[in-house]
């Protein structure tokens, strides 16, 4: 008999939820010392499969074989004991405690005997330091986690996974909030882990990354495995077409909007906080899509939140059609026909416990109110029904709870919510973040359609192809300063990257000053 070459085998795993077959006979085989990418649209079953591996869900049928031995995993602890670690997409550290306490939480080194048993702080510190040295991580064990950036927290989580002597580490969208440099750092750690024989299951939507880091790719669609291939045999287009089950000839729809006269002007926008945005001046034209590029920390979100009245500002003037206006709160912004789709859809966008109907109508209820303060239910339903059909939201009914929709459909509902307010200016913060490829295209189509109707759009995006593919002009930010505005057509990723990093490379002054 042949020796078992796989470190992990998940054989014929099925999982049924009421009404949905989330996993249908899925088989995943991973070799030691490799990076195995798991790809698929949202809802394809990647997360469900990983949750089965990690004991969060119990599969209806199928088996998990580790190193040739069948194992039973009923809870997370079983997974950890079997050398399986998972770095979740959303990290849950204990923010008010130190790095080392977070690292060893639940298994602090102890000293002393019986009832006189205390945490061995010194050993904990040394163990942490040794671990960080080994992984070449630049972190102090005693730093409070609340003061760390997202990427540092993630680095800490990886160290934690390693500290469990994990043989298999699952990384769910590890780079979704990392900057270019930080991604490189992560890849360095991943390559290092590979050398130690650790297998990495890597979930991501970012094709370029997948092709760079992974050895093998398994693609899922609708709860089934489409197939698996060595990464070198794949291209981005091949992956996309396998994921969506059709050929996507274009990642972006054709745009035929025509930017016209200036409708919105921002002058000298400056935050009261020195580390935030300063001296931002730009114009937005009618029917234009203005992209904002920059790295994480470049204060892009802060700017558009200030435009929407969610953040205070020390200085700055807004003009709409040449008239100066004041925006002190989202209520003011709404009156000026400005809409905002926030970056953190789940935190600041959706009402998870309310229906699609309520979620859609929420920003424009006043329109349906009669003199007796009662809402015109019929009109409200018609409008909501109409707009979610127009945006092609996939939902069983408008009564369905928002939390049961996929990310892409939630985003479309948020579009519908703001379109009901008939905005002239739309502020979109990472509008396709965490949305699968098929739905992304639909979101792009919506954005392009709005611009064509003469709406003006400001769109923050951290995905270069999206920024270049969708914007008429791209405004690039670096550390709170505007470093340049370039035409979308003919612009290159390198050009944007140069503008986005110029302050970082040349501390203390701008190269191409404004």
């Amino acid at each position: 008999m042949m020796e078992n070459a796989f470190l992990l085998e998940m054989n014929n795993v099925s999982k049924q939820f009421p009404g949905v077959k989330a996993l249908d006979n899925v088989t995943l085989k991973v070799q030691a010392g490799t990076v195995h990418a798991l790809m698929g649209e949202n809802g394809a079953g990647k997360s469900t499969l990983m949750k089965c591996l990690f004991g969060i869900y119990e599969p209806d049928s199928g088996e998990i074989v580790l190193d040739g031995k069948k194992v039973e995993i009923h809870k997370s602890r079983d997974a950890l004991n079997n050398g399986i670690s998972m770095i979740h997409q959303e990290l849950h550290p204990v923010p008010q405690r130190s790095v080392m306490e977070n690292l060893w939480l639940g298994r602090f080194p102890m000293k002393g005997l019986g009832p006189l048993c205390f945490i061995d702080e010194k050993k904990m510190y040394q163990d942490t330091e040794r671990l960080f040295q080994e992984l070449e991580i630049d972190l102090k064990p005693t730093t409070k986690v609340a003061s760390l950036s997202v990427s540092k927290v993630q680095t800490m989580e990886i160290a934690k996974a390693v500290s469990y002597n994990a043989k298999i580490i699952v990384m769910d969208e590890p780079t979704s909030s990392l900057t270019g440099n930080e991604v490189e750092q992560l890849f360095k750690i991943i390559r290092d882990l590979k050398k130690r024989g650790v297998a990495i299951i890597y979930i991501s939507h970012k094709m370029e990354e997948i092709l760079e880091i992974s050895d093998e790719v398994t693609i899922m669609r609708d709860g089934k495995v489409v197939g698996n291939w060595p990464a070198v045999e794949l291209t981005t287009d091949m992956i996309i077409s396998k994921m969506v089950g059709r050929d996507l000839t274009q990642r972006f729809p054709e745009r035929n909007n025509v930017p016209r006269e200036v409708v919105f002007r921002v002058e000298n926008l400056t935050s009261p906080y020195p580390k935030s945005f300063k001296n931002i001046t730009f114009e937005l034209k009618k029917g234009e899509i203005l992209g904002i590029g920059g790295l994480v920390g470049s204060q892009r979100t802060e700017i558009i939140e200030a435009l929407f009245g969610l953040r205070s500002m020390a200085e700055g003037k807004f003009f709409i059609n040449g008239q100066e206006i004041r925006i002190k709160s989202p209520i003011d912004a709404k009156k000026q026909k400005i809409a905002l789709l926030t970056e953190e859809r789940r935190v600041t966008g959706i009402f998870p416990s309310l229906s699609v109907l309520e979620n859609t109508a929420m920003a424009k209820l006043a329109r349906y109110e009669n003199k007796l303060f009662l809402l015109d239910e019929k009109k409200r339903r018609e409008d909501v029904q109409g707009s979610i059909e127009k945006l092609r939201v996939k939902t069983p009914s408008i009564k369905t709870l928002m939390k049961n929709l996929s990310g892409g459909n939630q985003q479309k509902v948020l579009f519908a919510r703001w379109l009901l307010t008939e905005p002239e200016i739309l502020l979109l913060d990472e509008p396709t973040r965490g949305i699968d490829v098929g739905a992304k295209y639909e979101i792009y189509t919506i954005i392009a359609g709005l611009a064509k109707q003469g709406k003006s759009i400001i769109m923050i995006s951290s995905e270069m192809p999206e920024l270049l593919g969708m914007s008429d002009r791209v405004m690039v930010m670096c550390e709170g300063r505007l470093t340049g505005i370039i035409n979308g057509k003919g612009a290159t990723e390198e050009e944007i990257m140069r503008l986005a990093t110029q302050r970082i490379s040349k501390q203390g002054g701008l190269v191409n000053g404004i």
Partner: protein
Amino acid sequence: MEFEAKKIQSRVENKRIQEFFSQNAIYIVLAVLIATIAAYDPRFISVTTIRDILLQSSTRAIIALGAAFVLITAGVDLSTGRVVGLTAVLSASMLQVADYSRRFYPHLPQLPLWVPIVLAILAGLAVGIVNGFIISKFSVPPFIATLGTMVIVYGVNSIYFDLPPNDSQPIGGLRPDFTNLGSGAIGDGPWSIPYIVIIAIIISFIVWVIFNKTRLGKNMYAIGGNVKAAIVSGINVGRNLLVIYAIAGALYGLGGVLEAARTGGATNNYGNMYELDAIAACVVGGVSTYGGIGTVPGVIAGVLIFGVINYGLTFIGVNPYWQLIIKGLIIVVAVAFDIRKYLDKK
């Protein structure tokens, strides 16, 4: 293979039954409760019993609906009981018969019935506005803000209650037109409908309309469901909270007036701990203390569960201390069942 399919089939069916139970947990608890008590003593199922339970639950329902407003916004109101006490004393002090020997206001002329009632409700409304103002203007957590007003209102009420010539004596000798509001009925005998029940039904309907048919109601669910998203949607969260706490205060006020009318008297300790009863009825009735979730029928069912327990257990002669234990268990068990609706399905 066929066996496999059957297994999955039966699993799906089990899920469906589970789903039914978790969706209707409160109503099932209510039915089981009634059936159990009736099994001990079949006489429990009678028109008189039902009438008595409704009578006793009416003020509770009005007060609990006030609390529900606040709970759905993910807030909490601890001032409930003390506002009930304040408005009971206020209304009773102005509605005593002319020839009563210990009148609160010895020389007060006979006021139209509605004047003291409206004044008392306005007092409740005022406390609610203060609550809402502290919470929305100064961002004091509702628990703390209403803890403060709870104590203050009790203090104010006690000073009022202690005014000479009353000197902290229980207020009695209430006018028959007032007490009739609490104990009178349309019709005669067991089939008569008490006014207080009619008032509770009307209030429930109005609250239902507010919850489901008005902007205020939608905003209330939105604020409780995700306050950050509500702010981004351009909802004036502060103003909505102010109105919601004010309405809640007014409902406690009405509840206090009706308590005085029903019992024919009032002291400054009326309504003590009613906030806990109201919150218990709400959570048993499916209102989420995390906010954003809750219905009027649910709250009414919650109130009725406690009404049935109070009346039913006394009816079959259960020791009142045991009743407390049973009530506590019901709260925990009902919520443990109900919360399953919202937990991530495994």
